[in-house]
């Protein structure tokens, strides 16, 4: 299948009818289309799948709005509008024109559901053209919908192809593409054919042949049942295996998390201690300030008191030469110590009274004696207070710092542990052991069924030989026997062919995958395709193969390599086709249409992927944005490009929105202001 052109009519952003030529040749297989975000790259990719299969990928939003919004708005209620995708392509010597279209009548502003119709015309090499009466069936026989995932895809989501759990589906699609599925189906269908053919043998073949045929039938039933059982056991085994691998993952996480958990516990304990120590120090300081804080302010007071007392000493006021109590006694008694009477208001009385003013109090002297004794210890206490406070401040500082450090550490450890939902190690270990046991039992059962199948096959072969020798006189019965022999031998040959093809395909796919992957990645990782088509990535560490977890980027590269390998192999096997006879010249040829081909890859990878892409498929349509596709990508791809285009965005957004894209030294409109929001397919070359 090679694409020739696509025409979109009122399809989502693509207003009116727009066509883009896609014809390419072996030397220049690439069509490169640039488009801004929202321009319609994903829409264009989905136009292909909608045209071919009538469906779009899940990431296309508002799938009921198929008609260009502005065209729908402008449409008067009651009028109709057409939405369509036309794809022209050629396949195995025939040209095809596919048209999926619908006419939608406007009943309200909301677009209603629509029933699209598919039409397909074929043009033969002699120019004659005819309408296909089973268009969808024809399309599906050219490219089955499951297989299309390898050829029409979004680069950002392609990694899903190699994610755990995708193998079953992918394996089936690969089998279709690599001509394994038809062999498997034939092997499954032929026993029924045989049963039908041998009816005549049983009816008319005589007692012996009929009895032998009965045995063969019963053995065949046994074989069919054993094969079904084997499928069930294999499915169970796959489930158990997946469960075991999940459990082991959890155990591994647990092993990784255990030291972190232990450290967090220790840090939490230390943090509690540090907080308690800090609080104790703070309380001690509070108590110290409350009980002895005043001492800090006694420095000048003590000095002043001392100075004052010294002054009093110097003046002779201390110790007091005369006590007031003594003078008061003289005045009370009315006589001086010299004998002079002290009558009130006499000169002598006045004289003594004047002495009273000058006399000191006994209490003051006593107090002074007490205070003077405390001035020196007070200074010592002050010094002690200073030291205690300094110590406490130091302790508080240290504990505060410890608390802050431990809090930071704990929060980091909490972060590390947050994403781990961990069952207890013990439970996990028990579960793993249990799974191991169940897997062993299933494996035993599988082995038993396989032995049974071998024995039954031998018995059938034996009985078939006996049947050949049995005397059969009836002509119809004889014919039936010959036909049954023919079917049996063809089935046996198909079984052998299937085994040969499966092994051959896997080995070649594996080799091709390794080669493509190696050409892209700079990591020393090697992909391997298991017998079950499961993709793993491993690295060699000193001779030991260790599986490596795949990053998103690696998954994308792995998927692209896988697509490249599958695409190449599909072509190769058709050219060397065997049992099916010679294929057409382009048998197994399919185009690859990819949106966001470079996903979120680094520049280096973008360059390597571009290089690989150009050689990847016989025809390649790459849809990229300016940021993904300019620079090295364009440089790598341009020599292989036969059509270059821009999906020009027209927007009603206000402001300076215009943007250009420069390709091969020339500027082209990329985004423009417009009266309506829509996109236009512009051909550059």
């Amino acid at each position, binding site marked *: 299948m090679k694409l020739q052109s696509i025409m979109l009519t009122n399809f989502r952003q693509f207003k009116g009818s727009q066509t883009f030529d896609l014809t390419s040749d072996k030397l220049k297989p690439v069509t490169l289309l640039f488009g801004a975000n929202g321009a319609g790259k994903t829409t264009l990719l989905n136009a292909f799948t909608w045209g071919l299969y009538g469906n779009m990928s899940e990431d296309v939003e508002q799938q009921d709005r198929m008609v260009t919004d502005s065209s729908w708005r402008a449409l008067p209620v009651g009028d109709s509008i057409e939405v369509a995708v036309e794809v022209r392509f050629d396949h195995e010597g025939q040209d095809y024109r596919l048209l999926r279209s619908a006419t939608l009548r406007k009943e309200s502003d909301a677009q209603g559901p629509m029933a699209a119709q598919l039409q397909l015309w074929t043009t033969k090499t002699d120019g004659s053209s005819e309408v296909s009466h089973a268009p969808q*069936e024809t399309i*599906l*026989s050219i490219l*089955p*919908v499951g297989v299309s995932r390898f050829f029409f895809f979004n680069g950002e989501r392609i990694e899903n192809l190699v994610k755990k759990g995708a193998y079953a589906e992918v394996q089936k699609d690969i089998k*279709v593409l690599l*001509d394994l*599925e*038809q*062999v498997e*189906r*034939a092997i499954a*269908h*032929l026993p*029924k*054919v045989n049963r*039908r*053919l041998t009816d005549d043998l049983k009816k008319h073949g005589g007692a012996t042949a009929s009895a032998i045929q009965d045995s063969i039938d019963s053995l065949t039933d046994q074989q069919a049942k054993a094969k079904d059982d084997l499928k069930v056991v294999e499915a169970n085994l796959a489930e158990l295996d997946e469960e075991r691998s999940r459990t082991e993952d959890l155990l591994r996480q647990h092993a990784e998390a255990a030291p972190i958990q232990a450290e967090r516990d220790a840090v939490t304990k230390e943090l509690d201690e540090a907080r308690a120590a800090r609080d104790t120090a703070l309380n001690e300081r509070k108590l110290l300030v409350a009980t002895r804080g005043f001492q800090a302010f006694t420095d000048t007071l003590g000095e002043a008191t001392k100075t004052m007392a010294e002054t009093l000493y110097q003046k002779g006021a201390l110790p007091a030469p005369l006590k007031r109590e003594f003078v008061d006694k003289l005045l009370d008694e009315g006589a001086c110590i010299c004998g002079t009477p002290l009558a009130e208001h006499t000169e002598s009385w006045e004289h003594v009274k004047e002495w009273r003013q000058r006399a000191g109090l006994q209490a003051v002297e006593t107090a002074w004696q007490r205070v003077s004794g405390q001035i020196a210890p007070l200074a010592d206490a002050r010094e002690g207070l200073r030291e205690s406070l300094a110590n406490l401040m130091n302790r508080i500082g240290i504990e505060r710092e410890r608390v802050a450090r431990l809090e930071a550490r704990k929060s980091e450890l909490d972060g590390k542990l947050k994403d781990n939902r961990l069952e207890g190690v013990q439970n996990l270990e028990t579960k793993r052991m249990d799974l191991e046991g169940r897997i062993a039992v299933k494996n035993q059962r599988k082995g038993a069924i396989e032995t049974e199948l071998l024995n039954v096959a031998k018995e059938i072969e034996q009985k078939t030989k006996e049947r050949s020798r049995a005397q059969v006189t009836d002509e119809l019965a004889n*014919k039936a026997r*010959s*036909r049954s022999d*023919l*079917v049996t*031998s*063809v089935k046996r*040959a*198909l079984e*052998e*062919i299937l*085994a*040969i*093809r499966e092994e*051959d395909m896997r080995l070649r796919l594996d080799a091709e995958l390794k080669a493509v992957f190696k050409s892209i990645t700079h990591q020393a990782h090697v992909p391997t395709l298991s017998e079950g088509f499961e993709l793993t990535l491993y690295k060699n560490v000193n001779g030991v193969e260790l599986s490596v977890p795949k990053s998103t980027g690696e998954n994308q590269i792995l998927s692209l390599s896988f697509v490249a390998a599958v695409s190449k192999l599909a072509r190769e096997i058709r050219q060397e086709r*065997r*049992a*099916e*006879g010679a294929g057409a010249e382009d048998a197994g040829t399919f185009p690859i249409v990819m949106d966001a081909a470079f996903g979120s890859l680094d520049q280096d990878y973008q360059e390597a992927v571009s290089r690989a892409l150009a050689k990847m498929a016989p025809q390649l349509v790459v849809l990229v944005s300016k940021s993904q596709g300019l620079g090295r990508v364009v440089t790598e791809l341009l020599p292989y490009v036969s059509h270059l285009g821009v999906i020009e965005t027209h927007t009603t957004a206000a402001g300076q929105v215009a943007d250009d894209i420069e390709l091969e030294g020339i500027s082209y409109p990329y985004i423009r202001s417009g009266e309506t929001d829509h996109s236009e397919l512009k051909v550059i070359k």
Partner: protein
Amino acid sequence: MSQSRNEKQVLEELSDEQRALLKRVLEIERAKLHITAYDATDDLVAAVKEILP
């Protein structure tokens, strides 16, 4: 099955009739690959009868 055997050898060992049926069977199955519910029995019986009338 020996590893050295290939598809060509398997085919060469078949009689003309066997080879013809094998090819026809694969053609029939291939044409209906996209129809999972397809029961090929009738078509295959017809193919056998065509080869061994």
